[in-house]
């Protein structure tokens, strides 16, 4: 029996999906609480979109269970879907309708009662910055505006759960900032899942992160946890007058030293025992001529390599 925590808006257990012999998603567990923004990260083909399609009822899972606000999505799809707003990878826009007509249709389909419908459409348009183009045909809008219409469609019925598949694709930097602010705002009252492969985006808007690779969740933690992971467990120091490498190894907290030439050393350390301070004082005492100390900033790809290496059969 699954837990019935009232704050838990999405709860998926053991979600799997096969396409023929190919396993796209394997035994995925996912929880999102009200007021939380979950970032779903992963390289192309990791299974993010498949997961989102399953969570929104567009694709039936091969195995597993999904509960939206404690309603079983597979048993009562209509009830559960009323609480979901979904922006798929390709926004489902009818090019021949204008923005207002389209959002009105989306609101009707999501059973927004008639007296509240006009106001709901207005709110969604204001939130997504669409008020100026409300009478324009969607087919004539630029890609960025179309993307915003797609987001507006997902939030027009004030759903408990908002699922956005790469919401900032095709937007210019200003629009990206606007949309991120909007997602943060939505995250206050609703639950949001967004997929992306842009790491700064995750840091800017998400509370928690799940990283997927080959259909499996390889990392799930808060943003702070991801930062620790990301910052890595290495610092690079550059010295004008480097000492013997064993001297560096003997400094407390240092787990390993690798010479990179030209007086540069890559120093590994155990989590929670950053030796930076000890290195600086040792450099001062020994007159090594320390001119640079940089914590290694690993990119998302590096995090992936780190995360997926043990899982991959060699």
């Amino acid at each position, binding site marked *: 029996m699954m837990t019935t925590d009232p704050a838990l808006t999405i709860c998926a257990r053991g979600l799997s*999906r096969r*396409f023929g012999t190919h396993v796209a998603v394997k035994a995925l567990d996912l929880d999102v609480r009200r007021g939380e923004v979950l970032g779903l990260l992963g390289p192309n083909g990791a299974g993010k979109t498949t997961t989102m*399609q399953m969570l*929104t*009822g*567009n*694709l*039936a899972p091969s195995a597993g269970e999904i509960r939206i606000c404690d309603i079983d999505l597979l048993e009562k*799809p*209509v*009830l559960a*879907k*009323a609480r*979901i707003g*979904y922006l*798929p990878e*390709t926004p*489902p*826009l*009818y*090019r*021949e*309708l204008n923005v207002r007509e389209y959002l009105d*249709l*989306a609101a*009707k*389909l*999501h*059973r927004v009662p008639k007296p509240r419908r006009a106001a709901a459409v207005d709110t969604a348009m204001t939130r997504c910055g669409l008020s100026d183009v409300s009478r324009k045909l969607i087919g004539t809008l630029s890609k960025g505006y179309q993307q915003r219409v797609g987001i507006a*469609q997902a939030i027009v019925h004030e759903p408990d759960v908002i699922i956005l598949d790469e919401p900032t694709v095709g937007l210019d930097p200003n629009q990206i900032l606007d949309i991120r602010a909007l997602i943060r705002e939505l995250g206050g009252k609703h639950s949001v899942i967004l997929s992306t492969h842009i790491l700064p985006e995750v840091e800017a808007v998400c509370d928690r992160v799940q990283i997927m690779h080959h259909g499996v969740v390889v990392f799930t933690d808060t943003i702070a946890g991801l930062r620790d992971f990301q910052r890595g467990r290495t610092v690079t120091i550059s010295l004008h007058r480097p000492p013997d490498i064993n001297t560096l190894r003997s400094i407390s907290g240092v787990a390993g030293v690798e010479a990179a030439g030209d007086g540069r050393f890559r120093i590994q350390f155990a989590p929670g025992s950053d030796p930076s301070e000890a290195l600086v004082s040792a450099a001062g005492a020994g007159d090594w001529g320390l001119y640079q100390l940089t914590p290694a900033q690993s990119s998302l790809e590096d995090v992936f390599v780190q995360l997926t290496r043990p899982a991959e059969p060699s």
Partner: protein
Amino acid sequence: MIFTIAGKELRTLFTSPLAWLVLTVVQVVLGYGFLKRLDDFLQIQAQLAQMASPPGITELVAAPTYATAAAMLLFAVPLLAMRMIAEERRNQTLTLLLSAPVSMTQIILGKFAGLMAFLLIIIVLVLAMPLLLVTGTRLDYGLLAGLTLALLLLATSFSAVSLYASSLTAQPMAAALLGFGVLLAMLFMGETAGDSLRARGWQVPAAFAQVFSPLKNFEPLGRGIIDSYAIVCPLLLTAAFLILAIRRLDGRRLRG
């Protein structure tokens, strides 16, 4: 919810030139045929008057017009229905409907209702032509009602078949050809299969074959005969193909 989807389909139809073209072509062809037959009727009216029980104007002018309309629906319905599911799949807009709190049945019935609403416009225009004659003559309202019902039932079964064809592919043109092909196959089969089965005394297979012969079921009603089996058959055919379309749509969710 069905009406919301139907309204959207109707609106989409009218934003494309195709719907207007179909309306125009159908009306021009039917209007010309109607006036031609009316003219012929007026020419032979004198001879008819000498017959013991002469065929009336409804039989000689309205009935052939309805037959032409039936033939035109054979082309028009697959063209009108082709985009309904195929194009939504190609443009990936079907997601909006599939993610909304709407069942597969409601989606298909909504699209079907939208298509039928459009075809109803054609049928009303067909009916309007003989009705205009009421100013100058007496009409056989029973026959006219039978003809209209027959055309409506034909439109219903054509729509269901074409909608199913549209659910099979993501290419609207392929859907139209497929729908047209299936309807044509039914037409040819209906001409011969039912009769040859009945000639061999196989009543049940013959009755079954009649379900799949929409035009065969058009005939009795078109002569003003209320044959209940000929009314049930197109309804069965419609239900069967709508269920197939619903299952097809749900199959996409299951198979991906």
